[in-house]
């Protein structure tokens, strides 16, 4: 079996998805000489949580001097950072970490209680898709309305209607009131409208994961275009995949404080650590220590010519490549794989010793870099699948040395029926008992 020379892959996370597979992307762009466009210094925000709320004049009149009992919630404390022009900056954090509050302060939706915030140029927030859409208006009118909300003039917004409708593939529906739109159409309209916002800085809150696979692909392309065209984007999310795939730099919020800022990969790992620290009560790592014998460097699918692909035609052989670097020596290495579909149905699993020139090898030494290439006959029906892999030791599939869950995502496309999970080729014959 041939082992290709290791490719330099920078900061690919556990999940390798379509948008980052092109070589060279994900490589670090340097913005240290670009001008600062957002400068936050010591931002803080407290919420007073009333023990009970006085929301009528009557109560106020009956108890004019009653001091409301409140509890102070420090949603943000002393958060400082800078974003430079053209940067794709990620703000990560778990629910309740203050990331949405920070976004709302950046967007002038909430008032800050302390610190200073300076912004250069025009900025538009996208906190939820389709906010401000009026269901009684048609698509074109809504595009204009939303355009103006984002800071365009009416003429500019009207000039963009065609382009937005094209991108959303809704040209035939431009005069339909959007209350009659399907939710998918609405999402496409909202996203396309957003992309036409002619602002210097976009603040985006977890609107990435919307729509069907094809549209998500289109959006990812749009984000990449945005990135290339030098737009500054601040993305708030708890999805580490987007942080690592899209962002040049990121910061991590936890309990209203900034716990990390810098490389998206590191922020992603720190986030994972935070997330699993509580569950596993293990503050060093969320991965059990005996499962850290290797570091995954990348996982992808290739076509017959060795080109990386994320979509396969029906019957096209699945060639999965998993590359990792050994941290400690593993004796009797076993490589196992599993394919599941979107419904998490396990379709197939296999285990093989790690082979070199067709022969099982005795051990993988610490420091070795290996790419395991597995070719699998493709009997899958059209649909979306993912592959998971494990490296095991001592020829025992239960003794896991490293695992990569959901390491590759891929789509099998084709025209055959997608009923069931695998394609079979039935050969029929008949026996009629009465014939003799």
């Amino acid at each position: 079996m041939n082992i290709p020379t290791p490719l330099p892959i920078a900061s690919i996370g556990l999940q390798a998805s379509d948008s980052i597979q092109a070589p060279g992307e994900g490589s670090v762009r340097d913005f240290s000489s670009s001008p600062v466009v957002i400068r936050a210094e010591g931002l803080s925000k407290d919420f007073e949580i009333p023990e009970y709320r006085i929301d009528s004049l009557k109560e106020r009149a009956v108890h004019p001097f009653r001091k409301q009992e409140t509890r102070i919630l420090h949603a943000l404390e002393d958060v400082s950072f800078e974003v430079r022009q053209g940067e794709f900056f990620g703000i990560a954090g778990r629910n309740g970490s203050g990331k949405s509050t920070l976004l709302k302060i950046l967007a002038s939706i909430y008032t800050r209680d302390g610190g200073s915030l300076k912004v250069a140029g025009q900025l538009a927030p996208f906190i939820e898709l389709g906010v401000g859409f009026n269901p009684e208006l048609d698509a074109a009118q809504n595009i204009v309305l939303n355009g103006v909300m984002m800071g365009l003039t009416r003429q500019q917004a009207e000039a963009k209607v065609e382009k937005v409708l094209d991108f959303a593939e809704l040209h035939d529906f431009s005069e339909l009131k959007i209350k009659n739109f399907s939710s998918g159409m609405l999402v496409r309209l909202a996203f396309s409208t957003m992309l036409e916002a002619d602002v210097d800085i976009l603040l985006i809150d977890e609107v990435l994961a919307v729509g069907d696979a094809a549209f998500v692909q289109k959006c990812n392309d749009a984000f990449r275009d945005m990135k290339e065209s030098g737009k500054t984007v601040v993305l708030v999310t708890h999805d580490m995949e987007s942080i690592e795939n899209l962002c040049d730099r990121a910061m991590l919020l936890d309990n209203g404080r900034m716990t990390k800022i810098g490389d998206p990969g590191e922020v992603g790992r720190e986030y994972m650590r935070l997330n699993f620290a509580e569950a596993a009560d293990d503050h060093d790592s969320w991965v059990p220590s005996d499962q850290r014998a290797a570091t995954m460097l990348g996982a992808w699918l290739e076509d017959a010519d060795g080109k990386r692909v994320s979509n396969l035609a029906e019957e096209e052989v699945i060639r999965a490549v998993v590359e990792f670097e050994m941290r400690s020596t593993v004796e009797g290495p076993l490589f196992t794989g599993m394919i599941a579909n979107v419904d998490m149905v396990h379709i197939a699993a296999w285990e093989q010793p790690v082979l070199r020139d067709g022969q099982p090898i005795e051990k993988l030494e610490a420091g070795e870099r290996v790419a395991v290439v597995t070719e699998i006959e493709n009997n899958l029906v059209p649909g979306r699948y993912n592959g998971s892999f494990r490296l095991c030791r001592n020829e025992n599939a239960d003794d896991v040395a490293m695992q990569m869950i959901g390491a590759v995502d891929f789509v099998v496309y084709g025209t055959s029926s997608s009923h069931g999970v695998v394609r079979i080729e039935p050969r029929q014959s008949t026996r009629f008992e009465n014939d003799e």
Partner: protein
Amino acid sequence: MSEEKAAPRLVEVPGPTALGGGFRRFFELLWLIAVNDFKKTYFGTVLGYVWSLLRPLALFAVLLFVFTRIFRIGSEVEYYPVLLLFNIVMISFFQEATIGSVASVVNQESLVRKTRFPRLVIPLAVVLTGLFNFGTNLVAVVIFIIAFGVPVTWTWLLFPIIVLALFIFTMAMAMLLSALYVRFRDVGIIWSVLVTALFYATPVLYPIEVVPPQYVDWIMINPLTPIFEQARHWVIDPSAPGAVAVAGSYWALLPPIGIYIAVCVAGVLVFRREAPRIAEEL
């Protein structure tokens, strides 16, 4: 730090405000939303225009019957039907716009909490939509003026002053109510009672002449009264007393003018104070 390039300058962000994001955007949004709402009522249904006229016309028909056949106040007043319709159209604008604006900011919660939306646009759009309706309803008044042969006078040209005075007062009221409602939900109930009281405390149904003298001063405290009296004087019947004549002197007009200004100032101050925190209060 190299900021000498063509990049825009770093500017301190003031946070959310009533106007938020510049005057041009403010007025364009205001206009778009008001026009859209207006179109919705007119083109949304087949009988759109008829429906919106029907309300004031039905009210007018009932009141006309009551006040000319049962109470007979109307029979002594020149052009009473025209005056009655004119007054109803004006007071309807004030009532509908203020009642509509009370909960407007709260109802548009998602706009306030999820976009950088100039808060003031929300109640003002309600008032502006009301103003458009007012304009179309005036067509009915013009038809009545022609049908009843009300004489044309040059003072008709002064009518925009009346509209302006009424519009500003309505706006101020809308700002005050919509901002207070965010914190105090019973403002809605209080206002629905007050607005009915104001309807009777304004010479809409009755001409000011029939009010017993001891009550005229009280009715004149209502800032709407001088506006309505002046409108009648300029548009319907030049022989009817204008605002000054009813009050007796310029000095006597000070209380309603004072209240008028107080409401305007309060509207602006309260809205400005509340605007930055509306998103958090909701």
